[in-house]
């Protein structure tokens, strides 16, 4: 822009149609006005029609008693709670499956994507078969497959399979012993957090020292000792505050203990395996975008295969991987709304399903639900964009 500085320098805007700046401004204001008026018109029409048909409007219903049960809730919930509370229960369930699904899908996607490029014929072909099968079957069918074909035919609770001592698999899901918490166990968790923070700090310092002086510090070993040792010490000193609560067989089903519902497992499996297939392709494309010369150069420097991948290829591949990966994470979150088909109480099932039906306030309920997905997606996208900015090529 060096030469054109004078030409584009600020000058008074002329009030003339011949002024391109003024023209552009008028077009933009006009376009914005059309958008606003259209939205306003749609909202006004909807409002008219609602009042004409005597349909209740407003958000007051959120305070009314819900009166129905929800099979899985991360926050305290009972039938006497409000619709607003039921909304939060559904939201937590959606966030739970989306967060776990994202972590698992990204991990599996990286493994499969790297495996597709493996020089081992069998590993590469298995990975390719996985990707081509899973990403080409509709997700809803996969969910039905996991739920109705795999998890439902499992034996009943009385004949359940014992995976580990105290861990049972049946058509009611996976039941495991719960951990009873007492006062001193708070100290345990506090220590755990402190230990993790300390480990992160040590890892940073070790890396800084390596870069500055070339001296190695066995950070991995030290950190493992800290993370396991410190909380274990507190646990012993505190008099082993955990009590295992074993699940017991009741009249119909296990009672007590912790439980993973089959609906949750089917949804998590379906979302993870489906999305991982797409992520694997993204990872493969990203790795292949890094020139082979880089790998050869790294090998020439004496780096092992693993080091080459970790230190040379992946950091460059990430620039290509992150933007489409963001889309896949967003897809996974939005696809979790298929939960309603297999009875998992997510936001759409609880709020846009049962609550909508009992209050009949479709516009409000759907607006809130859409708003929530929008906020979740924008927040995810924002976080991923920040990360992308960090790994992007920094021009000097």
């Amino acid at each position, binding site marked *: *822009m060096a030469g054109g500085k004078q030409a584009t320098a600020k000058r008074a805007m002329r009030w003339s149609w011949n002024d391109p700046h003024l023209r552009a401004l008028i077009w933009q204001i006009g376009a914005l006005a059309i958008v606003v008026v259209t*939205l306003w*018109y749609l*909202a*006004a*029409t909807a*409002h*008219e029609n609602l*009042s*004409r*048909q*005597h*349909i*209740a*409007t*407003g*958000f*007051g219903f959120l305070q009314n008693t819900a*009166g*129905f*049960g*929800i*099979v899985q809730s991360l926050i305290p919930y009972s*039938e006497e709670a409000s619709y607003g509370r039921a909304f939060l229960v559904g939201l937590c369930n959606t966030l739970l499956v989306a967060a776990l699904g994202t972590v698992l899908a990204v991990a599996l996607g990286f493994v499969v994507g790297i495996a597709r490029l493996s020089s081992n014929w069998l590993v590469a072909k298995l990975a390719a078969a996985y990707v081509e099968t899973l990403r080409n079957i509709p997700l809803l069918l996969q969910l039905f497959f996991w739920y*109705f074909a795999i998890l*439902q*035919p499992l034996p*009943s609770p009385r004949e359940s399979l014992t995976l580990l001592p105290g861990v049972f698999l049946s*058509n*009611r899901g996976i039941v495991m012993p719960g951990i009873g918490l007492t006062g001193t166990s708070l100290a345990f968790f506090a220590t755990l957090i402190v230990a993790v923070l300390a480990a992160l700090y040590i890892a940073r310092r070790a890396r800084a020292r390596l870069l500055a002086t070339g001296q190695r510090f066995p950070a991995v070993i030290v950190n493992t000792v800290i993370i396991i040792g410190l909380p274990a010490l507190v646990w012993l000193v505190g008099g082993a505050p955990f009590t295992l609560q074993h699940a017991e067989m*009741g*009249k*119909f*089903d296990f*009672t007590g203990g912790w439980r993973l519902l*089959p*609906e949750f497992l089917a949804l998590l499996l379906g979302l993870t395996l489906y999305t991982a297939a797409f992520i694997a392709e993204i990872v493969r494309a990203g790795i292949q975008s890094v020139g082979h010369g880089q790998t050869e150069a790294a090998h020439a420097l004496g780096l092992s295969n693993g080091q080459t991948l970790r230190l040379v290829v992946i950091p460059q591949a990430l620039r290509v991987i992150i933007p489409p990966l963001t889309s896949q994470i967003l897809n996974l979150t939005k696809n979790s709304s298929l939960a*309603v*088909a*297999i*009875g998992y*109480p997510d936001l759409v*099932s609880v709020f846009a*399903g*049962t609550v*909508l*039906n*009992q*209050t*009949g306030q*479709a*516009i*409000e309920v759907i*607006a809130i639900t859409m*708003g929530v997905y*929008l*906020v979740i997606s*924008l927040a995810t996208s*924002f976080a991923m964009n920040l990360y992308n900015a960090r790994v992007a090529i920094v*021009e000097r």
Partner: protein
Amino acid sequence: MARRPSLLSRLFPFVFGLLVGAGTLYFFMPGPGASVGKPVQGQPVAKAGQPAPAAQPQGATLATVRERGYVQCGVSTGLPGFSNPDDKGVWTGIDVDFCKAVAAAVFGDETKVKYRPLNAKDRFTALQSGEVDVLSRNTTWTMSRDTSLGFNFAGVIYYDGQGFMVKKASGITSAAQLNGATICTQTGTTTELNLADYFRGQNMTYKVLPFEKNEEALSAYDSGRCDAYTTDASGLHAQKLILKNPVEHMVLPEVISKEPLGPLVRQGDPQWEDIVRWTLFALIDAEELGVTSTNVNQMKASPSPEVRRMLGTEGDFGQALGLSKNWAVDAIGAVGNYGEMFERNVGVKTPLGIPRGLNALWRNGGLMYAPPIR
């Protein structure tokens, strides 16, 4: 020397999305802001304090239906005895017969009706938005549906109550033994609420597993995911038939709720509401007066003034509805009287085998009682 876009322009999509979302939400908030609508072309503005403009002009629905040439009737996605398609796509059932009766009353031709299969979850939105003219879909008459959802119920076509189905092998013989059980049901119905009320009232615990579709709820019960399946008692009898092995299951004796099922219409068009309501009443009155699908034409000459009024020989009650004189003759001729509808679809000679019980005429000890046509 690529310039980085400013923070403001990078944030613009987020800010814009949030603004639009917040604006939409604000618009539907109750309060003074809510009713300030922009004047919409050709429609009066509702000002705060003034009564809302009159609902659809009288007869809007009837005119729309006549112009379209058929009645759009909302039915279930498949419930034997009530509304169920066979392998050729032909619908049968007591709710379907009622749709036919309305079409016959309006057009004199019971084939001028189209069925729209609806989930429990979608049925009310479909009626509110005008996708269907009448919802005849084993729907329970409740206060909130009648008031805040903006509907009017035309009457009761089937007196039902919610029950439970369990596997015989479980050894359960009473609902009182269901403490701690997992129960499958369809989402978006009164059953979820009744279930919660019943278990709270009995001080028992339960886990509910609601599915969007009946078939999925039933399949989950059949495979043992749930200990019991709950819906209206008529539905239990009907759905037992489609289980893998019906004889292994039994319906528990307890009925835990009142479920008066009936057809409903949008609030705000009294004429259409009257047509649907009086079609139902005519079918019930016809049974009481001994008018059937086979004798309806001879009965026109009946000496009984009640029969003569209903069948249009005396007076013109059809005109008051905006219909022809023969409205009731056509409706009864098409599907028979209420008793015929009941016996053909759900009665003791059908696979469902449901006795009349509460659904017998009032003079036979049941609850079926329709106001007189006069």
